[in-house]
């Protein structure tokens, strides 16, 4: 299961770490350990991919809460210790969108990320215990909100 989904796990870790290579690897360790721990809770009611996405996302949110007690990545960045992932071209606007998504309330951020990663409304509803209609509405509203924030930032 792990080997089948490692690119997905890597991607989630990378997204929540805003592409910082040193952090992605640490997060990957944490996520895989979580998957191991919670494997017994996988009952096959949702797809393997959906279950992994939910466990990985919850782990990343937990790590982020822990991190908030320590210096932020932006502060470290300011001290020149930032490593972008090798081979990944990140332009400023792409990074801006990532940061805006990262700044969303946790649940909305998770919904938007899952939507962007190709999960259906039904699958996202399973992950979040919302109805499909509620998921669709959140996505539409949050996308609009992101668009406004993005354009405001660009104009600065």
């Amino acid at each position, binding site marked *: 299961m*792990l*080997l089948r989904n*490692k*690119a*997905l796990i*890597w*991607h989630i870790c*990378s*997204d929540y770490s805003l592409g910082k290579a040193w952090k992605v*690897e*640490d997060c*990957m*360790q*944490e996520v*895989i*350990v979580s998957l*191991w721990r919670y494997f017994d809770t996988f009952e096959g009611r949702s797809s393997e991919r959906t279950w992994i996405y939910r466990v990985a996302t919850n782990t990343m949110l937990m790590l982020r809460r822990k991190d908030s007690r320590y210096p932020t990545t932006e502060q470290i960045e300011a001290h020149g210790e930032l490593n972008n992932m090798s*081979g*990944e071209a990140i*332009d400023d*606007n*792409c990074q*801006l*969108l*990532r940061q805006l*998504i990262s700044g969303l309330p946790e649940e909305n951020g998770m919904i938007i990320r899952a939507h*962007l*990663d*190709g999960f259906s409304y039904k699958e996202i509803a399973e992950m979040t215990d919302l109805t499909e209609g509620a998921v669709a509405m959140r996505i539409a509203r949050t*996308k609009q909100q*992101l*668009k406004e924030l*993005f*354009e405001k930032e*660009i104009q600065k």
Partner: protein
Amino acid sequence: MNTNGFDIQWQKRENALNEAQNSVPCDDVILSMAKKAQRQGKAKRLWVPYAAAACLLSGVIVYGLTLPNNEVKFLCNSGCSAQDVIISANKIVNQE
């Protein structure tokens, strides 16, 4: 078309997972993390390097967790005892 616009960036982000599928050096991920943990010697949870290497060869997923008392605990998915993992891991270490 404004190539820096929101819609373009949104689309790029939509494609990010596909790009990851093609570009992540997946086969080496576990081993490289293990080696990094070994180099740093300070990872919170160490992936015992030889166990990870054994995992790559045998197809068994093995985790080496370092407990607070520095004892290393092996966990593996199934069909394989920790002892077997350690034996094959030692072989790999000796080959290196």
